[in-house]
Each structure stands twice: as structure tokens, then as C-alpha cells.
């Protein structure tokens, strides 16, 4: 368990699957992108170890153990000592105190335990909550990938942000 001021992060367990599947059915959950849309409960349940074996996937929960969302680090490059980060909060928990603390806890793990030096992340232009969370967490814009993803019948720009260890620790 990784402890933050407002949230805790813990690994995804089988007991979480029903909750995650219901959420996946309700919204488009991009951490499940590899599973694709309209996945059945049987499929997600039977392939738990295939889809959730990655040790970088976490449940974000509050101090009362309520599930607030999920977050993940992935695409680790040990050569360049970098990785990507994603997060998603459930509807009703779009609160910067919670989302920024989630990023902070995960970034602490990435920089201070995994010894990586750079985190990059992506957010579509329409995800203003995600973009503002990254800005508040100290991420710096690196560019805009034009018309990079297709959502709801149109192509959207994708914003790239990065955070370096020295900047994170200086602001810590």
C-alpha cells in the first residue's frame, strides 16, 4: 500500500473486478484500452492475470477505503530511465486534492523507489480535468499531437506533459 495525504494506492485484486467492470461499462475506461470496449464480465474475470498482472496498475482509494479511481505507470524504458503515467477518477471524485495527491504518490514511487528520472503523460484536449491535474502536479507541456485520437466521431489533439525527478523533488 502506498500512502498519500488524501489517498492510498494499492494493487488491483480479483475482488475489485466487479466494481471495475461496472465502471468500464458506464464510461470508457482508457486504462482498459487493451481490453477494448464491450468486454463481458466472463472475459474480464477469466483473464484477470492477463490483464491485471502488471505491477504498475493501482486502485486509488480514500482513507475510508472507498474506490476513487485507478492509476498506472507503464512503458518503462530502463535505458532512458523514463515511463508513462495514467490516471482516471470515477465520476463524483473529480477533486484536484484527490487527483493531484494520486499523481504525487505514484510519482514518489517512480522517482524515489524505481529510480527513474522522467515521467511523461498524455491527455486529450477534451479532458480538462486531467490537463489541470497534471499542471497542478507540476507537469510541464512538451507539445500537442494534432488529431491524434478518435473519440465521439472526431479527431482530438493530445497534449503531452512531462515531469522530471529534480523538479518533483525540488517542489516536494
Amino acid at each position, binding site marked *: 500500500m502506498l500512502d498519500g495525504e488524501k489517498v492510498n494506492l494499492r494493487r488491483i485484486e480479483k475482488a475489485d473486478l466487479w466494481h471495475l467492470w461496472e465502471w468500464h461499462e458506464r464510461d470508457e475506461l482508457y486504462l482498459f484500452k487493451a481490453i477494448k470496449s464491450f468486454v463481458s464480465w466472463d472475459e474480464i474475470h477469466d483473464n484477470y492475470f492477463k490483464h491485471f498482472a502488471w505491477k504498475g496498475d493501482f486502485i486509488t482509494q480514500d482513507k475510508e477505503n472507498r474506490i476513487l479511481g485507478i492509476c498506472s505507470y507503464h512503458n518503462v524504458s530502463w535505458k532512458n530511465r523514463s515511463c508513462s503515467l495514467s490516471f482516471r477518477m470515477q465520476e463524483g471524485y473529480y477533486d484536484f486534492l484527490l487527483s493531484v495527491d494520486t499523481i504525487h504518490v505514484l510519482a514518489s514511487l517512480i522517482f524515489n523507489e524505481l529510480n527513474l528520472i522522467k515521467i511523461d503523460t498524455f491527455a486529450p484536449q477534451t479532458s480538462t480535468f486531467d490537463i489541470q491535474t497534471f499542471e497542478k502536479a507540476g507537469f510541464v507541456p512538451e*507539445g500537442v*499531437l494534432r488529431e*491524434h485520437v478518435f473519440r465521439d466521431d472526431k479527431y482530438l489533439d493530445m497534449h*503531452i506533459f512531462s515531469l522530471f525527478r529534480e523538479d518533483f523533488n525540488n517542489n516536494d
Partner: protein
Amino acid sequence: MIKGRTVNLRRITMADLPNVFKWWQDKRLMKYYDELPVHTPLEVEHILRQNISAADRIDYIIETKQKESIGRIFLSKINLEDRHLEIHTMIGEKNKRNMFFGAEAAFLMLLHAFHQLGMHKVYGRVMEYAKEAEVLQKEMGFIKEAVLKKQYFQKGQYCNGFLYGLLDREFEALLESPKGQKYLAASQSRDKMRT
């Protein structure tokens, strides 16, 4: 096989292993690619097999009209939902490293990506010191979209990377331009000669 005026592109096979291995040993060449040093033919064979069977990637060998293999070009991270992919070009043979072969190979590959695979966007990443690769991207109409700070660790230090993108409508505009017409005429003249 995709045929052009000075080069052809054909799908890579395991028979290309000796050439791929040879190019991979060229330190001057590999400093432009974000790859770990690979030392044994067995490791390269393993990577080649993985690449050939990957669902989101297509690898081609660039060869001259005399069927001399001179480099590789490949499309990776093929995303069929968002309709984008990443392009990589590598001229392995030292005496063939000029704009001519690389530019025609890239043009043929873009034509394939947009007109055959129906992509909306093609993007490419280059290291900041890979000036020739950057010129090639600009020659094909790519637009710089991002500066990736300290993205690559090479030769004991970090260097920035640039991400360039080309949309389908921008590629069509290139085809309409005199430069694009020149490239297009070269590839089409090859088709006429074949028929």
C-alpha cells in the same frame, strides 16, 4: 512489393538476418536509434521474429533496383481505431546514405500508409542531433508537434527528441505540390514500365 524509381520496398524475411545484424553493429548508425546494443545474431534473430509476427507493425527492406538490400523502413504502433502509426527509416549501407534513397523510400511508405492502409496520421520521432532525419521529415511535409526533453540516453548523456506528425490532408497537399508531383510521377512511371 512496393516499387519506386530507384528503390523497391519488400517485406522483411528471416533471410535478411545477416544484413539486419550487420547494420545493428554499426555504432555510427545506431546512435540515431533508441535501441540497446545487441551483440549476438541470436538476439537479433529473436527480435526479427517478434517484429515479423507483431500485429501492430510491418517491416520492409529497402532495396535498389539491382536488388541490393540497403536499409530498413517500418511502420510500428499501428493503431486501427485512431488510424495513426509511427514510421522509421534506416539506410544501413554507408555508401547509400543520402537523401535520395531515404526520401523515395519514405515517400513510397507514406503513399502506402495513407492510400492503402487508410491512415489519418503518420508520425515519427527523431533525436535532436539527427539532422538528416529531420530534413527528411520536413521534406515529406511533416510538422514538428513536440519537443521531448531529455528523452533519449545516448553516449553517456541525455538528448532531446522531436516528434513530427503528418496528417492525411497535408500529405494530399504535398501530392498536389510540384515536389509531390515529382515523387508521384517517379513512382507511377515505375508502374507504367511494369505494365
